[in-house]
């Protein structure tokens, strides 16, 4: 399922809403999650999962092909942990 398919499904379930409002709802949700992670906040959606940001220190890496050392800058990585409810439902236990 893509974002546009998600929008389509929501539109079918909510015939009283304008399509552009549904698009805005979906955009707003992902924008809020993104903005939270940009601030370093955690997003916890019980039963679904939690988004958080992990920090990676700068390190000296090596190009595996040439053996050359390269400096890898510190970076932040988005991370998702599946919630208990969804994990159980994926495995038919929900």
């Amino acid at each position, binding site marked *: 399922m893509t974002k546009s398919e998600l929008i389509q499904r*929501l539109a079918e379930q*909510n015939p009283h809403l304008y399509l552009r*409002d549904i698009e805005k*709802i979906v955009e707003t*949700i992902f924008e809020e999650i993104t903005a939270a992670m940009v601030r*370093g906040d*955690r997003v916890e959606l019980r039963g679904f999962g939690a988004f958080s940001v992990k920090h990676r220190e700068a390190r000296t890496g090596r190009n595996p092909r040439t053996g050359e050392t390269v400096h890898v800058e510190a970076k932040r990585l988005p991370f998702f942990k599946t919630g208990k409810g969804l994990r159980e439902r994926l495995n038919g236990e929900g």
Partner: protein
Amino acid sequence: MDSRTITRADLAEAVYEEVGLSRNESSELVETVIEEISDALITGGNVKISSFGSFSVKEKGERIGRNPKTGVEVPISPRKVLVFRASHVLKDRINGKA
């Protein structure tokens, strides 16, 4: 940095402010979005949200694990796990590049 935790209520509040539906309907829609994504994953599909990331379900085979406390070997049954891959747009924004 003081970090806080964003929940469904914050997402519903943002939808309420951006779209102008009632608070009730805003929170119902947030729930529906989460439910639709969950259903798609449970029924075996992947979910791709452009400029955010993609969720996919991976099947893990059975393997032998060990109880770290007792050292007793136990079979870990095959199971499905959800994997999230962040898009480049999301990674760049988190690193202040976009």
